[in-house]
């Protein structure tokens, strides 16, 4: 979808190096980018990465062709940073259980959620990114593939693989919720 006139003008100014235009353009998208990063690397590291993603996006805005939405493009940058960050750490991301708690609308079984979220945190960064975008963020398969710049079939394969690992881990971890199905 072509950007509106106002958005297009902001984009032009931002591409010309106007930081205020870029800020205005991306400020509404920061929450989503932060949410994706928080689910990928945890809230603490997400703070740094969202800043890094935004600066990087500003500096490379000339490469934004507009064939995907700005949101998708920003998410792609953020996800790539998160994958690299997680790969460097070579460990699972310690997700704070409280991050998954929603006091105002508690899920049916918080323990169940925590078990699944914990298993997701143990996925490889690429598989985790697929799960975060598709299930947590609600992107379609095509949108997720675009965000990760992979083919649709690859995206589906990653989800399949992620679910297979999740099933295995939830099955072996016990805890009852999986077996009790």
């Amino acid at each position, binding site marked *: 979808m072509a950007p509106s006139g106002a958005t297009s003008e902001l984009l032009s100014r931002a591409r010309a*190096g*106007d*930081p205020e235009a*870029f*800020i205005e353009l991306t*400020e509404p998208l*920061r*929450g989503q980018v*932060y*949410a*994706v990063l*928080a*689910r990928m690397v945890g*809230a603490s*590291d*997400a*703070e*740094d990465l*969202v*800043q*890094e993603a*935004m*600066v*990087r996006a*500003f*500096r490379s805005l000339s490469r934004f062709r507009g064939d995907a939405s700005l949101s998708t493009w920003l998410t792609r940058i953020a996800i790539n940073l998160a994958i*690299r960050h997680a790969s*460097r750490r070579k460990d699972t991301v310690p997700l704070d259980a409280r*991050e*998954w*708690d*929603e006091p105002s*609308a508690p*899920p049916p079984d918080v323990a*169940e*959620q925590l078990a*699944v*979220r914990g298993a*997701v945190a143990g996925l490889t960064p690429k598989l985790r990114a697929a*799960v975060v975008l*598709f*299930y*947590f963020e*609600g992107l379609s*398969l095509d949108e997720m593939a675009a965000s990760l710049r992979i083919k649709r079939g690859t995206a*589906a394969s990653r*989800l*399949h693989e992620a*679910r297979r690992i*999740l*099933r295995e881990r*939830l099955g072996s971890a016990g805890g009852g919720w*999986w077996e009790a*199905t």
Partner: protein
Amino acid sequence: MVGSDMNCRHAQKTISDWAAGLTDVDLAAEVKDHAEECPPCGQVLARELRLTRVLRTPERAGRAPAGLSARIDGAIRAAARSRRPGLRWLPATAACASIAFVAAGGLWLGSVVGGLQAPLRSVATAQPAPGAAPADAGPAVTTQQPSGAQEASTAFFDAPAKAPARARPGTAYASPRASRRSTPTPTDRPEGQGGGPLRTVLVPDARAPGPVEVSLAMDVPADEVSMDFGAGAEPIVAVASEGSSDIVLAGVTSLTLAPAVSSSSVVPAPPTSREVHSR
């Protein structure tokens, strides 16, 4: 036939795709019927749906903390301020330095390049650091010898409001990540170093192939010194305090250190070392 191997395999594959949300096509009536009549497939359907339901259950990812937005704004403005036409030659210079670096035989397999350059005082010849290890024994960091000692004492990096005009985009903003790192104190500075500002090089996982993250801690005596990290490298953080600077570069594939940096202040990392102190 309900319960036959063939039917179950087909049903479970279809169920798995459907429950995972990977197909928009509704579950065929015959598969539903099969799942209702076949306990194992019914259990698979229930488990897959349950997993999907939990994965799709909205949860609070955490609101961005107060102040983060302002920090991002500051970082973007700092990046914009440092976008100066006069620095556009730097990537080419970095590329030349990298070539010289390779020619000097100090290439360390899969590691580190970046650049510290004073644009007004750059020196052409890159050379391996004294004691640079051979390609199979650890990283070598190339330095360009300073043409003269820098006398000013202004901190190189600072908060956005004090960002030096010549800093490259992204270098002149603070981040808690950097502040959480163990920034060397002035007392870490080795004796008899001849004024070289670089004190410490941190090369996490330095022997890993491909780009790595490099941390540099230094006393930078001139606010006119600019940095270039070469193509592909990205500054993550840069902070300054009490005349010392700490910068973290990501995606670094090579490192060239230019004026105001004493080659004696850089040493190759032992193969297993994750931290290299200057000497």
